[in-house]
């Protein structure tokens, strides 16, 4: 079959559903929870129930942020458009509605993605139905995940965790937290493991919630762990410290979550493009795809550039998902997608504010909100610079010791 870059028809139903939810459920409460930053968006409980119902009925495939596991079953040679493709397209639709609310979707946390990606079948079953947030960052480091100070010490049948985690998305609302901690600081990256920690574990405390530039509907928590005892079967992946293997195990999660964050940027930016196209048309500026941009108004030329960049980010995201669905290694493409979509998300949303002048800047429209929401997407799950570093190392064939 020939090359085709259209979203498959069989995902259309799912995408249309997500679009209707975004338009009719998220948009009406978008500003409300932007203003009321730490209030729980109770409307989402009903939405989550609806999504669970849909997935149980089989009417949808991998809606939301979960379902990025690489399925070992059904090993035939045909090209698949599966759960990863479904996830990035539906996440993009939801973020067209509201990125902050998407990130607040019960049971669709980044921790759920981690569990779906690396947990054993037994763990999958045990954590089914739980809302899992992800705790990596600590006060003294961001991008340098190897610098983790939080410790996990095996004591009998439990690991005992101590440390402080910041920027935990849905940290207050989630049922459990996927915590990255080191078994032995002296052994570097290889000793870093992730643990599923139930929120009601003694010693786990949500210290405070951050006040943020954007995605204000989503709670971002500071959480401390003081002698928090976690059953040893809650460790995700291999408990042995394999110095040769390094960071690979824990980092594999990112191959699956980065396309999702790229999809968020794609969705958020499309919201801005869609509205700006209409506002420009109202102002008498129509985009002509055939005439040279130089012969159209500066606004139309700018819009063409933004749309072109946006489409590039969107297609890179689909490519990364397609590779995951077909079990091709995709860490290079995942980073490419996130780098491109992340920076395009900012350029598009900020430029749309500029194009729409005070209409864009005012809180009467959502353009200014999208320009705030988009910024985080070029930061979390690996900043723009980290993605460039990953791409550069891969393309140039350099180690992390050579290209720092």
């Amino acid at each position, binding site marked *: 079959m020939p090359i085709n870059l259209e979203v498959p028809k069989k995902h259309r139903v799912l995408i249309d559903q997500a679009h209707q939810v975004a338009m009719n459920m998220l948009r009406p409460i978008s500003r409300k929870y932007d203003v009321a930053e730490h209030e729980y968006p109770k409307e989402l409980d009903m939405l989550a129930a609806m999504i669970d119902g849909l997935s149980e009925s089989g009417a949808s495939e991998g809606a939301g942020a979960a379902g990025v596991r690489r399925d070992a079953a059904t090993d035939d040679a045909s*090209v698949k458009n599966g759960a990863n493709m479904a996830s990035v397209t539906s996440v993009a639709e939801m973020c067209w509605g509201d990125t902050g609310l998407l990130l607040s979707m019960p049971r669709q946390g980044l921790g759920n993605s981690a569990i779906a990606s690396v947990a054993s079948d037994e763990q999958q079953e045990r954590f089914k139905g739980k809302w899992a947030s992800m705790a990596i960052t600590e006060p003294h480091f961001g991008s340098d995940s190897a610098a983790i100070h939080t410790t996990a010490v095996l004591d009998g049948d439990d690991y005992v965790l101590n440390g402080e985690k910041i920027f935990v998305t849905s940290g207050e609302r989630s049922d459990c937290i996927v915590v990255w901690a080191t078994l032995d600081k002296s052994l570097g990256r290889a000793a870093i493991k992730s643990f599923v920690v139930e929120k009601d574990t003694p010693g786990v405390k949500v210290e405070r919630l951050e006040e943020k530039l954007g995605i204000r509907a989503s709670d971002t928590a500071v959480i401390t762990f003081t002698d928090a005892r976690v059953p040893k079967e809650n460790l995700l992946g291999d408990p042995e410290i394999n110095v040769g293997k390094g960071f690979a195990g824990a980092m594999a999660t990112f191959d699956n979550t980065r396309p999702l964050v790229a999809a968020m940027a794609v969705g958020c930016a499309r919201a801005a493009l869609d509205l700006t196209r209409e506002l420009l048309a109202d102002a008498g500026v129509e985009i002509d*795809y055939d005439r040279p941009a130089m*012969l159209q108004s500066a606004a139309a030329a700018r819009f063409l550039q933004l749309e072109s960049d946006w*489409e*590039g980010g969107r297609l890179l995201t689909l*490519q990364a998902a397609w590779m995951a669905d077909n079990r091709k290694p995709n860490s290079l493409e995942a980073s*490419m997608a996130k780098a*491109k979509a992340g920076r395009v998300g900012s350029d598009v949303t900020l430029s749309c504010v500029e194009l729409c002048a005070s209409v864009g800047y005012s809180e009467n429209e959502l353009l200014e909100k999208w320009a705030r929401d988009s910024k985080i997407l070029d930061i979390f799950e690996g900043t723009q610079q980290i993605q460039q570093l990953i791409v550069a190392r891969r393309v140039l064939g*350099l180690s992390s010791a050579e290209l720092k």
Partner: protein
Amino acid sequence: MSLISNLKPGGRHGVPASESRDPIGYLVAGLNRLAQTDLLDRVRLRKPTEQVVFSVTRSGFKTITRASRTFARSGERDRPGVRPTPARHSGTFDLTPSEDEQMLVDVVSEFAAEVVRPAAAHADDRCSAPSDLIDSSLEIGLPILGLPEELGGVAEQRSATAGVLVAEALAHGDMGLAVAALAPGSVATALGLWGTDAQQQTYLPAFTGDGAPAATLALNEPRVLFDVLAPATTATRSGDGYLLNGTKSLVARGADAELFVVGAALDGVPTLFLVESSTEGLTVEGDPAMGVRAASMTSLHLTDVRVPADAVLGATDGSTYTECVRLSRLAWCALAIGTAQAVLDYVTPYVKEREAFGEPVAHRQSVAFMVADIAIELQAMRLLTYRAAARAAAGKDFSREVALARKACADKGMRIGLDGVQLLGGHGFVKEHPVERWYRDLRAIGVMEGTVLV
């Protein structure tokens, strides 16, 4: 013309008309002209023999177009020609080329690496493609790639995707030579897409037989802020035919071409016309440009060129012309991808080998991130182009997709050319390395219209 008026500034040598020359300026300008004349004589550039040998490298040298072979009239004028069928697909998102496409890409890639790339620098310098290289391209079957089997071609169905993959692979060798090799096939593809039965029967046998003619798709015009959809070249009805008047610029292989497809406004609507090179009123002039030089760019002057009524190719409502423009832009996008990939493949080992301050420059983020961005933007360009191509092949509307691809390929492609030179520093500026040629070639994207088509 007096000496003084000849030396008036404005419009020449890049001097704006607002500049004025004082007496010293006139003296200097006059001396300069004298010196040039002297120089010309001393190096014997005006050898009588060269007066008759057309060379694109010398702009301003005009001659009549080449005599064309006799295209024997055949077929029915009012019957639509054979059309390629749209590509079938399952609706699955898939970036894997078909087996046939992959085989084609493998053959063309080998040709690009072993024949095209080694010939590129010399061809760029001479503004001409080696004839054996063009002959080999005919053997591979480049001119008939886009033609359906019924017309003697190789395509089972609409093959815009295969066209893109081939153009990309060829341009990885060299963009200028790729254009020289692809120009005839573009005319053949256009005849396949829009020709009447008579046009197909008259012209296509030459392309599908041995020794396919040079042919070219002339849409560019030498005008600032040129809008390809509003050509200044006109077609006026005269008798039962048309008179064409105007100038086309950057016409690939115009001096060799035996068949032109020329864009002209008919009643204000852009329309394509088939013009045989032996038609009276055609002159061709060397028009070498910044890059894509191996394609032997020329200007084509049309002065009361009389063509018959059935010289119109496709519809007269502008739809054929617009589709042609879009498919040409798609081909230029494919060329941009190939050349940008060549840049990436060249700078990657270079920055790892080149040392500064005791280690490879690739170990610095400012260098490494430039390479990363080349890789990222190149892949985005590729996906944008493939999507537009796949939609074109499937017979879907692709106007938006090709516009977005072209924007990316023009902007990011040029950026890649620029960074390619920058990454080599001073070495990138000299002709010992090909990056300066790629820099010149990549500026063509977004400027060039027509010429190639998938």
